[in-house]
C-alpha cells in the first residue's frame, strides 16, 4: 500500500523540484558573487519558451535545451551589462526585467503559434535515463554537487565568494570585479534558463503565458532557505517540490487541507528561516552596485 503511494509521490516531488533546483543554483551562484538575481523569474520564463520552440523547430529535445542555454546567455549578458557594467540598481532592473520578459515571451509565443500550429501542441517527453530519473533530474543533481564543489573547494570559487563578501577588498586583491561578475551572472542566467527548459521540455511539455507562475521566486526562497549553499538550497527545493506535489494530491482528492496552504509552504518557511537566522551567512555585499573608483 505504502509502496504504491510513496514511489509516485517521491517522483512527483522530484519532478516539481527539478526546475526549482536549477533556478535556486543560479540564485546561489549570482548572489555569492554579490549580485541579486531577482530577474531569475524572467530568465526562467524566457528559457522555458526558448526550450519549447527549440524542440518544435529543431525536432530534438537536446537542441531545445541548447537554444534555451543560448537565450539564457543573451539575457544574462543584458542583465549583466545593466546591473554590473553600468551599474544600475540590481533589484529594480530585475523586477522590470521580469515584467518585460512576461510580455516578450507571450508576444513571441503568439507570433510562433501563428506560423506553426505545432507550438501549441504537446511536445514529446524525454525518456528516463537512470533509475526512472529524467535527464533534467540527473543534470540537476550533477550541477548541485558541482556548484558546491566549485564554490567551496576551488580557487575561482573562493574568488567569487570573496567578491560577494566585499567587492572592494576583492578588487584590492587583484580580482577584476566587473568582468568576473558579468561572467558569473551570465552563467547564472544560463542555469535559470535551464530551469525554464526543465519546466517545459522536462515536465509540462507545452507553453502558456506566464507558465513559470512565480517559480523563480520560489527558487529565490530556496536559495535563502539554503543559506546560499547549493546542497542545502537543493534540499529546500525538494521540500518545496513535495509541497507542490501534496497540493496537487489534495486538489485531485478534493478532501483534506486546502491545497493553497501547501503552496504557502515555501514562503512561510523562508520567512521563518530569515526570522531565525537573520542576516547570518548572507553574502555581505549582495545588492550593492560596484562602482569603479
Amino acid at each position, binding site marked *: 500500500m505504502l509502496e504504491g503511494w510513496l514511489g509516485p509521490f517521491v517522483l512527483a516531488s522530484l519532478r516539481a523540484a527539478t526546475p526549482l533546483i536549477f533556478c535556486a543554483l543560479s540564485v546561489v551562484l549570482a548572489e555569492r558573487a554579490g549580485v*541579486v538575481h*531577482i530577474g531569475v523569474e524572467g530568465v526562467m520564463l524566457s528559457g522555458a519558451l526558448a526550450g519549447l520552440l527549440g524542440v518544435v523547430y529543431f525536432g530534438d529535445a537536446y537542441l531545445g535545451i541548447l537554444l534555451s542555454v543560448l537565450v539564457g546567455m543573451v539575457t544574462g549578458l543584458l542583465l549583466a551589462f*545593466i546591473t554590473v557594467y*553600468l*551599474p*544600475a*540598481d540590481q*533589484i*529594480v*532592473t530585475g*523586477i*522590470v*526585467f*521580469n*515584467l*518585460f*520578459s*512576461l*510580455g*516578450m515571451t*507571450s*508576444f513571441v509565443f*503568439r*507570433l510562433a503559434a501563428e506560423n506553426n500550429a505545432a507550438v501549441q501542441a504537446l511536445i514529446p517527453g524525454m525518456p528516463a535515463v537512470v533509475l526512472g530519473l529524467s535527464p533534467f533530474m540527473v543534470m540537476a543533481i550533477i550541477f548541485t554537487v558541482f556548484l558546491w564543489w566549485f564554490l567551496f573547494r576551488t580557487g575561482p570559487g573562493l574568488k567569487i565568494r570573496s567578491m560577494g563578501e566585499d567587492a572592494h577588498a576583492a578588487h584590492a586583491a587583484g580580482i577584476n570585479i566587473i568582468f568576473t561578475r558579468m561572467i558569473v551572472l551570465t552563467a547564472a542566467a544560463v542555469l535559470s534558463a535551464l530551469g525554464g527548459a526543465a519546466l517545459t521540455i522536462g515536465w509540462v511539455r507545452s507553453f502558456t*503565458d506566464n507558465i513559470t507562475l*512565480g517559480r523563480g*521566486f*520560489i527558487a*529565490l*526562497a530556496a536559495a*535563502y532557505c539554503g543559506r546560499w549553499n547549493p546542497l542545502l538550497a537543493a534540499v529546500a527545493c525538494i521540500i518545496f517540490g513535495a509541497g507542490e506535489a501534496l497540493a496537487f494530491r489534495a486538489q485531485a482528492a478534493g478532501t483534506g487541507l*486546502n491545497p*493553497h*496552504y501547501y*503552496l*504557502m509552504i*515555501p*514562503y*512561510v518557511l*523562508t*520567512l521563518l528561516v*530569515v*526570522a531565525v537566522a*537573520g*542576516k547570518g551567512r*548572507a553574502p555581505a555585499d*549582495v*545588492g550593492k*552596485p560596484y562602482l*569603479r573608483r
Partner: protein
Amino acid sequence: MAKQKTGTMLSAFAQRIWDSPVIVPVLSLLLSFLIVSIMAMIFGVSPGAILVALFEGALKGKYAMSSTVKETIPLALCGLAVYLPYRAGFFNIGGQGQLEIGAITAMAVVLYVNGSPAAVMALALLAAVAAGLLASVVPLVLKLKRGANEVTTTIMMNFACIQFVHAMITGPMKDQSAFYGTTEGVPQALRLPEFSLGVNMHIGVFMALLLVVATYWLIRRTSYGVQLKAVGGKPSVAEASGISVSRVITLAVLVGSAFAGLAGGIQALGVTYRVAEGWSKDWGFSGIPIAFLAGNNALAIIPIAFLFAILETGARYMQFMTGVPAALTYVFQGLPVMIFVALNAWRSMKPKKIQR
C-alpha cells in the same frame, strides 16, 4: 573658428539637455516605443495603428474612459505604496500581497457585518487599510530587528498573502453556488457610490487624488519629509543627527502598505464587486515601475498611473483591432524603467571617466 564655436555651443547645448532631469524619462519612453514599434512591425502592424487602437480602446467613449479612470486609482495607490517607503530606503515589493489581503478583508466585512451601508462601507475600507498595514509588519520587524533584506521578505509575503486569499475564496469564503473559487458579490447597497463627471467614477478617485497630494505635501513640506530624505540618503548620518531611523522607516512603510491595502478594498467594493480566482490585475507589481518613473515628484504618479491605465484598458481593444497580443503592454511597462535606470547609471558613470 566660427564653426568651432558653434560646435562647442552645440555640444554645450547637448550637454544641457543631457543634464536636464526630464531627458532620461522622455528618452526611455521614446526608446521603448521604438522597440515596441519594431515588435509591432514584425507582427505586420504599423506602430501608428497600435497607438491609435490603444488610445481609442482606453479613451474613446464613456465606458472606456470611465474604466480607464477607475483603473488609474489602484495603480496610483500602489505606486504610492512603493514610492513612500522607498524614500526611507525600504523597497516595498509587497504591494500585490498587501492589496489582495486588503481586498479579501474588505469583502469579509461587507459580507459578514450588518449595519447601515455607509458605516459598513467605511469599516470595510478601514479594514482593508489595516490588513494591508499588517501584511507589511512581518517584513518591517524582520528588517529592523533581524537586519533581513526587505526585498526577500516582501516577495515572500506577497505570495503567502496571495495563497492565503486563494485558500479563503476556495474555502471558508467560497460562494457555494459558483463552480470556481470566488466570494459572493458585494450587495448593491454596499458598492462604492458612483457619480458622473462626464464619465462615471466612484468616490475612490477622490481618495487616490487626495492621498497622492497628501504624500507630496508630506515629503516636500513637513519636517517628517526632511527626516525621510535624511534616512533614505544615509541612515547612519541621520541617526547621528538625532533622527530615530527605525521610527521614520516604520511610519513610511506602514503608511505605504496601507495605501496598497486601501487599493484592494477600493477595487473589491468599487470595481470587481467580488474577490475571485484571477480577479486582480498586477496592480501591486505595476506600482514599482510607476513609482520609479515618477522620479523625485510624487505628483507625477498621477499622470504615469493614468498612462499605465491606458495601457491596461486599451490593450484588449488593441489586440482585437490589430491582432497584436495584449501582452505587449507588459513589455511597455518593463522596458521604459529598464532603459531609465540604465541611462541614469550611464549618466552618473560619465563624469567619473572624465575626471580620470
